[in-house]
């Protein structure tokens, strides 16, 4: 089925287009907007973005595959990102990650069976002074303890 944005997001798109001297520059913001609605970037989304911005499909697909935050297959409703780069690793990132895996019963890159949560590792999220940290959807959770991880993950699935 062809993809299209909700009327509200159509308006946001018009605002996005007004910021740039050409349509191509809207590629990444528009992909974000579509993914926010659809949960992932399907072939239909790629076609929609290409048509809307008058770009070759191959261009849009090339962009999608370059950036780690665009998903090319369906994902969980929520995303958990555990930072594992050096400052976090020096402060217990491995344990945080293990706890997430145990608690969710999935490995990195997987989604829980109920489709609620996808688990990812992240590279340095500019939160090194408050390590260890993880991001859940749009929120940062810093100075994490294992107990807090439990509470946060329970909250996601209740």
């Amino acid at each position, binding site marked *: 089925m062809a993809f299209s944005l909700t009327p509200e997001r159509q308006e946001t798109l018009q605002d996005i287009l007004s910021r740039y001297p050409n349509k191509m520059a809207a590629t990444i913001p528009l992909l974000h907007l579509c993914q926010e609605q659809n949960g992932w970037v399907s072939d239909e989304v790629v076609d929609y973005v290409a048509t809307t911005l008058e770009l070759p499909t191959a261009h849009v697909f090339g962009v999608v595959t370059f950036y780690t935050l665009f998903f090319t297959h369906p994902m969980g409703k929520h995303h958990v990102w555990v930072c594992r780069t050096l400052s976090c*690793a020096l402060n217990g990132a491995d344990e945080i990650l293990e706890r997430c895996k145990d608690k969710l019963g999935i490995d990195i890159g997987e989604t829980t069976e109920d489709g609620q949560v996808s688990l990812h590792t992240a590279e340095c999220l500019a939160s*090194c002074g408050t390590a260890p940290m993880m991001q859940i959807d749009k929120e940062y959770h810093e100075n994490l*303890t294992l107990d807090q991880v439990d509470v946060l993950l329970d909250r996601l699935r209740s």
Partner: protein
Amino acid sequence: MLKQTKILTKRYDLDESWTLQTYEKTGGYKQARRAMRMTREDIVAEMKAANLRGRGGAGFPMGVKWSFMPPKGDKPHYLAINADEGEPGTFKDRTIMEKDPHSVVEGCIIGCRGIGANAAYIYVRDELHLSKARLWDAIHEARKKGYLGAKPFGVDYPVDVFVHTGAGAYICGEETSLLNSLEGRRGEPRLKPPFPAQYGAFGMPTTVNNLESIAAAVPILEMGGDNFSQLSDLHHMRDGGSRLFGVSGHVNNPGTWECAVGLTLRELIYDLGGGVKGGELLGVIPGGSSTPILRPDEKVHAPNEDDPMHKWHGQSVLDVPMGVDTLRNCGTMLGTCCATVLSDQACPVLAMHNLMRFYRHESCGQCTPCREGSGWIERILDRIVAGEAEIEELDRLHEIAGNIMGNTICAFGEGTAMPALGFLKKFRKEFEDFVRTKGKSSTGRLTIAASSDHRAA
């Protein structure tokens, strides 16, 4: 010397510091108003006098960079602000966006005026949702007041500011990759020349500045460039002003502070950072993971009296004021000025492994030496850590890193190879022991405290 300042951070502790109301109550937008009535040359002259060395990592003087922009013709000029903040260990620009976003907007107005641009794009990594929201709110508030738009402060010179988001790629912090990403392309770095000042965003003359650099344009105009520069102990080396310093890793009190340039690593680690947590200092990465690690027993060697480093001859590198040129002379770089501390309870082999995994993951894949080299480095380290490597493989690591240097389009290659060589040279004994004993010589860990018992939030 430790001199804490409250210039860039003067609003950090105020209530609702991110609102226009607080901003204007504390002198905000006066300099943008002034700048709109100054000539480009006068603005650039102040920036040059300020000796502000780019806060994004390379340390290029901001005023000089602005002066490379061509005179205004019929082509539009652009200002691109780098808030990708992806360099591991770096967490400073985020504080400005969250706590004082109007200073960024005001800096952009001054910057646009100084380089002949009418639009600024602030490139923020996607994950920083609060930062993006604060910047947009500030932009909307400023627009409503008429500080942005067709006639900012009543002057017939349109200026607008936009936030553009990335989508998770460290390489997009590299300035030409950032420009490609802004244009809606894959974030692959471009060959230079042409430099952004000739052919930048959308093929037009563009200046790329770090977010902290542009925010500093406001106090530079307010104080006067020369006064700003003189805050620094390294004013005589043309490294001026005050800046944000950060420290994380194995310290008791991680965080960011604003200090005059001239702070030493020892002051950063012990006086501000509260000292090393869980052991003695093994090493410190001075300014983001691309800057080679320093050991506390390294000494400055500059016996010649004409050497700019002679003043610190024989002293520990920890006691050298942190500057762009001083740290380069110590064989490393100041980078982003956010240090990462390793205690001797952590294993340097595992630390290098962690970082080299990062670089392999983030290489954009455009240049073969970087794409393949970063992969080989990681795989050899995988083998070392698994206790399967031979001692000769340490030399292979040197070779591979050496072959990346100078053979790539952008500085990501050096940013991978230099810290790799730093770890290998400075911890040669630890690496050899690790390989020989299959890891038994090492503490076998990076974390020194169980995460549940440290620093209750």
